[in-house]
């Protein structure tokens, strides 16, 4: 190996750049942050290339004492589970930074600083291999987004951001209590440790698992969001500035569901099996609810918002199918959803700009002939979103449904209708905005340089993954199987003996 990869550099590079930028002139500062996010992207690509799918376990581990008194370690690592999520974060943050650097007029340095802090926090949450460290990064994520939405948002932005932060923090504070309780109870008087590896070995009693599971589940479901916890979504999606919304929807939502895979399934296997049905019901409900509401929205952003709820429902369905295939499909779908949502929001921003700032769908239309590049790119991501065969989403959803069919046929059948509904609402958005007549006041110009620069690369990755989904599947298989195994065995009627045998 020609070089070693230090995850600390990956995680803290954006924040460092953001801090230095605060003391530079505005222009230089902005570009420094953009460069840092490009650096992270380069690092992530190097990691993808370097990653050996056949070698198991954690790679590029950093493991130091952080707070020895509380047993908290500064432990970072990469395996199949988070490799692609880190890559996704890096890939999506870079264009958002670029967009932000060029399109933010007011207090742009501060904007960039918060974006950088957000990238650091998200990467930290994905890399963390210690529960307490994960909680730290998970909560820290909210700080920059609070400022970004409240400071640069549109409309009733302060209300939106307060709602968003309180919703999510209520969840994550519960998780904090659950995490501490888990650490203390699992230690059982011995050395306190929050390391995932240690906690996976110290399985706590089923009763304890259950209430801790609920605390974690609330945190992750709010973040995702899933059906009864989505109260913050509408306000937030309306108010958030475009580059922030892209990462919020594409990446932040994934941290929650990632938490299920990384923490809940392996550490609380009994409770996962116990609450499997409940989670499946929530997932299916989210799919139907999100799809139906997406169909009836007038604002393009909200269509995507509700479709995200449905998509996240699919992901949770895959995870709680407690089946190898389902989990792998969920992982694949996490990446896919991020990849298609990002260009969608950028395109919506472009459409809104062309329509003179209007956000309603009926103020758009007739762009296809006059802006062919835009229309083509839009079509690609639309088809990917509705899981057309040949798109990576198709692979992901099929795997999820296969996983569900094996044991939970009914849920799988109901969820399948979600795939059909997705086709309906996505095509509706595409038709409304691209076909029909030009609406008065609309300026049908094709994509500009910046817009191409942010939309095209991500779309190319979508196409590439559609052609070669094996890239993801090969590298995630080993890790996802290992994480789901204990809970799956318990759900299949196997006893706690599995857990105890480890």
């Amino acid at each position, binding site marked *: 190996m020609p070089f070693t990869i230090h995850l600390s550099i990956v995680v803290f590079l954006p924040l460092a750049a953001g801090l230095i930028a605060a003391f530079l002139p505005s222009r230089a500062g902005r570009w420094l942050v953009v460069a840092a996010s490009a650096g992270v992207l380069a690092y992530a690509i190097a990691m993808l290339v370097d990653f050996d799918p056949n070698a198991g376990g954690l790679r590029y581990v950093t493991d130091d004492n952080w707070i020895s008194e509380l047993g908290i370690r500064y432990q970072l690592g990469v395996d199949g589970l988070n490799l692609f999520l880190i890559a996704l974060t890096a890939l999506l943050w870079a264009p958002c930074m670029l967009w932000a650097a060029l399109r933010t007029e007011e207090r742009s340095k501060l904007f960039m600083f918060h974006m950088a802090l957000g990238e650091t926090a998200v990467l930290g949450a994905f890399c963390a291999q210690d529960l307490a460290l994960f909680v730290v990064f998970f*909560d820290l994520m909210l700080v920059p987004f609070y400022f970004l939405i409240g400071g640069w948002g549109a409309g009733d932005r302060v209300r939106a*951001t307060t709602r968003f*932060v309180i919703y999510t*923090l209520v969840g994550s504070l519960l998780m904090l209590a659950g995490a*501490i*309780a888990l*650490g203390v*109870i699992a230690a059982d008087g011995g050395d306190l440790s929050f390391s995932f590896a240690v906690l996976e070995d110290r399985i706590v009693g089923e009763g304890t698992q259950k209430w801790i599971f609920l605390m974690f589940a609330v945190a992750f479901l709010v973040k995702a969001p899933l059906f009864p916890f989505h109260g913050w979504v509408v306000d937030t999606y309306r108010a958030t500035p475009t580059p922030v919304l892209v990462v919020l929807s594409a990446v932040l939502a994934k941290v929650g569901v990632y938490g299920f895979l990384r923490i809940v399934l392996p550490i609380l296997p009994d409770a996962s099996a116990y609450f499997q049905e409940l989670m499946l019901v929530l997932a299916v409900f989210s799919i139907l609810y999100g799809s139906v509401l997406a169909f009836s929205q007038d604002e393009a952003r909200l269509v995507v918002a509700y479709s995200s709820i449905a998509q996240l429902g699919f992901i949770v369905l895959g995870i709680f199918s407690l089946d190898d295939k389902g989990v792998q499909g969920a992982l694949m779908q996490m990446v896919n959803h991020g990849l298609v949502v990002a260009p969608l929001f950028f395109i919506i921003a472009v459409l809104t700009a062309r329509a003179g700032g209007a956000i309603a769908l009926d103020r758009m239309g007739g762009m296809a002939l006059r802006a062919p590049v835009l229309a083509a790119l839009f079509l690609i991501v639309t088809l990917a979103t509705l899981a057309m065969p040949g798109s990576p989403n198709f692979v992901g959803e099929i795997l999820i449904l296969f996983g569900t069919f094996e044991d939970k046929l009914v849920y799988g059948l109901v969820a399948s209708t979600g795939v059909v509904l997705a086709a309906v609402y996505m095509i509706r958005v595409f038709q409304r905005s691209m076909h029909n007549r030009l609406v008065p006041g609309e300026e049908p110009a094709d994509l500009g340089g910046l817009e191409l620069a942010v939309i095209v690369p991500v779309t190319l990755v979508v196409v590439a993954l559609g052609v070669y989904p094996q890239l993801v599947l090969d590298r995630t298989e080993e890790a996802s199987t290992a994480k789901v195994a204990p809970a799956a065995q318990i759900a299949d009627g196997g006893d706690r003996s599995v857990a105890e045998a480890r």
Partner: protein
Amino acid sequence: MIELAQIKAPVIEYRELAPLFALLGGSVVVLLAGLFNGAWVQRVLVPVLAAASLLCAMGFTIANWGAGDSAPIIEGALAVDSFAHFMSMLFYIAGLVTVVLSLRAPVARETGMGEYLCLLLGSIAGMVILAGAENLVTLFVGFELLSIPLYVLCAGEVRRARSLESGLKYLVVGSVGSATLLYGLALIYGATASTDFSGIAEAIRVEGVTGIAAGTVSATDPLLLTGVAMAATGLAFKASVAPFHQWTPDVYQGAPTPITSFMAVATKVAAFAVLVRFFDQALTDAVTQWAPALAALATATILIGNLGAIGQRSLKRMLAWSGVAQAGYLMAGVVVGTKLGVQATAFYLAVYLFMNVAAFAVVLARERSTELGDDLDSLRDLGRASPWLAWPMTIAMFALAGIPGTAGFIGKFYLIDASVAGDYAWLGVMIVVGSMISLVYYLRVIAVMWMGAFEISLPTIPPRRVRPVGGWSPEADARAQPEVATVAILAAAATIVFGIVPSPMFDLARDVGSSFSLLP
């Protein structure tokens, strides 16, 4: 030949008492120096002397700390242990901060810088005694020495009705608290026949716990329990633990802001120092009796404090209510009655000091440079106007809310850890619930500073006006009072540093915990 009665001169432990001598001597010197007129004496010499006295006390305390724990001095009345040293250091820091914040304060001009700082040093001496009290009498002496100067200081702005009101309210409520405490202490003495903490602990010792013979008094003795309840009530007044907190918002709002900040920080630390020592040392064997009651108080305090803060427009009132809530969190560390609990409380007290100093310094700075007093609106758009004040306030609010990256998060983590480990998991959950509620008002402050114009629907209270320092100009603000901004920035920096590198503070806390050898 008549033999004269042999008088044995008492041994005076000069080394251990040195910090107290420095403080009390300093307060006399400051008072006398303040008698001289002249701008230089009033503005420079007197504050410098007061700061020097605090620094001397700090130096002596550090020297004593380095020498290790020794047996209690003055016939077992005053402890010389890491716990007392740690708390004393917090008092000195709070004192230094108050001296700096008072440099341009109208209250110091009106009372006279000499008298003002003399009282402040006297109050700090009372706190130091209180933190070391190993005896019911010492406890009460420290308690009163702490309180009486504060009554005067609260009413220091003699030409302002609100300040007088604040002083009077504090005097009345504080006296009730003191009387209750005194009564309780008398009952405890009646039950255990001892004023020494060690004697009380011996009297109620449960057999088998420490391998020493059981005491003579049952832990359920009604006389003892009544005494404990009354003493707890008296101390709860000082710590503003609900339901004995009602005075807090009024007094905090009316008092001159440097004094408010001193009360919010130092008095709280002192009250918790004595709560910890009293309950976790003298009464540790009766833990099953008092712990559920204190846990109930903690819960009520967390809820009442946080709910009360939501409706506040005045920043000082808001911080007062938030202080009530924080007292509830701190109480959790006392309730569990373990070493871990003591350590968590000590840690959180230190953190609490930094967060609140940062917040109050900013409130003070804005109060002096806007016409809006301590109204929430005085912070309007501060992020743009003077980021050097906005950032410390932001950090303080995040830390108080317990957001990671700040010491407030680690402190709460430690407290929850102690609660769960001490079989009070539900109290840990209460801390979390309290933090959730607190987001509403902490985030509102941040939103006002950074997010431009928006409506806040809160009942308006007529703002109190303070003579301007920076000439009402928001831009001149930070530059006109560099010392206030410096305090805010330093305290905020400490909040961040201890949030990222908390190990030094943990080492201190562990050292503090070692003072309590009886605890599990």
